[in-house]
């Protein structure tokens, strides 16, 4: 998932070491930049905490990476309830995706969902991005 770029070094060892150190440092800095540019900005969704006490998470925003498992319900103009399987932990969670997101969802597709925990524990998808 992380896009890491590796560069070759044809220079002598001492200079090469210096260069390589620079390059490594630059690469690390670049990678860090790249990584920070690719990563979601929210926190990962605490699945276990949600399952145990969903009320404690109300109002929070999280990122959730998960795979579409099953469409539970759909109402036109409103949205759809989707059961997703977390990529970590293999737990199924229900999320609501509003029709306004115009998402085309298929089972087994993986997404990063930016979610808000709403009242009653509803995982409301604010944004989603296919992984």
């Amino acid at each position, binding site marked *: 998932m992380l896009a890491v770029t590796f560069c070759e070094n044809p220079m002598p060892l001492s200079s090469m070491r210096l260069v390589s150190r620079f390059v490594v440092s630059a690469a690390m800095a670049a990678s860090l930049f790249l990584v920070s540019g690719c990563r979601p900005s929210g926190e990962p969704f605490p699945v276990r905490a949600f399952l145990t006490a969903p009320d404690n998470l109300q109002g929070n925003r999280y990122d959730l990476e998960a795979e579409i498992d099953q469409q539970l*319900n759909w109402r036109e103009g409103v949205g759809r309830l989707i059961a997703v399987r977390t990529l970590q932990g293999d*737990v199924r*969670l*229900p999320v*609501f995706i509003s029709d*306004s*997101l115009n998402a085309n969802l298929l089972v087994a597709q993986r997404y990063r969902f930016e979610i808000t925990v*709403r009242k*009653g524990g509803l995982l409301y998808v604010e944004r989603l991005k*296919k992984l």
Partner: protein
Amino acid sequence: MRRFSLFAALTVIAVPATWGQSNPFSGASGASGATAAVEGVAENATANRSGSRAGAAESLARAVNVSSLESGTLLQIINKAFDTNSDSIDPESGTMKWKGHSYDMGQFRVFRGRFERYLSLPPTRDQDVYAATIDEVFKLLSTRTADGSQDAVVEAWKLLYRASEYESDGGNSLGVANQIFNAWRIRDEKQAFSVTQTELERIRRQQSASVIYGADTMQAEAGRAASGAASSAGTAAANASPRVNIANNGNASGGGAASGGGQTIGGGSTVGMTGQGFRTRELAETEAKIKALEAAGLMSVTQAKLQFQSQIMSLFLQRRFQHALIASSFYRYIFKGSHQNLEVGKRELASFLPSTDLALTVETIEFLSREAINDINSGMASVRSNYDDNRKVAAIERLQETFFLGEYMPAVTQFEPNRKTELLNLFRKIDEARKLADLRDYDAVLVLTEEIGSLTKDFRTPEVTAAVRSAQRMSTLALNAAQQTAATGDYVRAQEFVEKAAQLWPLNPAIKTYTENMASQADLGTQAAVVFDDAIKREDYRRLYERGAELSVAFLNDEVRGPQLKTVIDRMVKVDIFLSQAEELIAQNNAFSAWEALTSAATLVPKDVVLNQRMAQLAPRVAEFVGRLDQANRYEGDGRYAASLTQFLAAQDIHPASQLARTGLTRVSEAIMNQLSAQIPPATPANE
């Protein structure tokens, strides 16, 4: 007839009042616990059944009614078979007829008791000596064998005192002897009267002669005086003076001339008018005494005759025929032929000879007494003949009538003891059977009838057995009709049939069973209501389900509990199906599905003990799944559908085939969508 009246009275026996109470059964409904379709079929079937039952009940009713007409005849047959009374005995009036005369037996029950006592009594002691004494008396008095001398009569009279000492004589010989003594005493008195009368007659003759002589003398004197006066003219006046004196001095001393004239007449005795008057008075007195003596003698004889005749009549009417004969014989010797006509008891005696106008004499009593004795002897001969022929019932009948006529006769009193014992045994058994027949204890009657039949060949065992069997069968028929009528719901008629069955055979064991069943069913109805209400209150449906058959019968007529019971049974049938299903799933190691089956059952009967036990056994194996479902349900209940949805999903993860989870997901997701339909703000489209 009296027994028949008793039977008639028994036929209105009231059946216990419990039959009058309402009956909790209804034969119209049935097939409880079946489905509606099945119920319809069942109702039709029940209606058909009721129709067929009603028809059968009608048939039985007709049979019972027809038979009832004959039941009186059957009972008469039984009664007649047990009747050992002779035709000459009328138990109704308590009389016995013999030669057209009705003897009053007193109360028939008392007479039967006396007859039974006779059968059980041993023969009296020294009976043979007593019989010989009586025979000797007869011989001494017999005009054929005796010489008729006074010595023989006195000897016979003495023997009466000896005979009276025996127990079987009953003191009657002493009464006869005393009567004879009395007659003889009167006769002696009459003889003494005769001596006195003879002397008085002699005196009367002397006095009469004296009076006649005095009168003649006085008349002669007067005649002479008259002739003297005629001859002498101056004495005419003197001739007239005595006549005048006689006429004037009837009770006076007279004048001096007259007195002087009287003294010459007697020749030393009293002469004259005064003396003649005394003699005349003395003669009158003597004649009065003679008349008085004659009257007294005549009265004594008449009194003695009447007393004697009264005693003879009394002995005859008391059936002391031997003593009547003896007394009659003595009477003949004591009183002369002109006194043989009966002055007392003629009307009683005439009843024995209703068609004759002959003069009734002491000989008539003798004749009837001999007739009676002959009848008694022939009766006892008949008894013995029947007994020897093993016709003991006939022997009892003959002995009974002979006993009444000749109760005091040696032929009866000396009947063989062993035969009397046998007849007494049979008599008692027949009497017991008769009483049992009166009580309609037919089983006991049959046993006794068999026993009696083994004792004598002339007892009508087949008739009694047939009559008893018929009565029993009729009672059973009536009871069957009652059962079938009750099954159609017509309890009034059922009660009538039961009454009829009880009338025919009160001890019919089937009646007891029937009444017990009906009573227990009525009791069941009450108990069932209590049990049902309690179980419903505690939601103990399984108890009702287990007693479903019993309660269904009890609530056939209960419009409230009946449908409730049906619902409970239907529900429990489903629960049992779930339980069976869970058992099978557990066997397949599918604990989650088994749990779901049990959970489905729990929605029907949450407090069922068996179900909860199964769930408790299974819970550890499905704890997490159950926890998720439980949590989901609680969240759903709180309106927190999203959290509930999460738990349902988690549960479905555990058991993907979970029906509960699937339905929960559907249900809760729909609820969420409903909420969001109104709340959700439009979302920002994603930029991919």
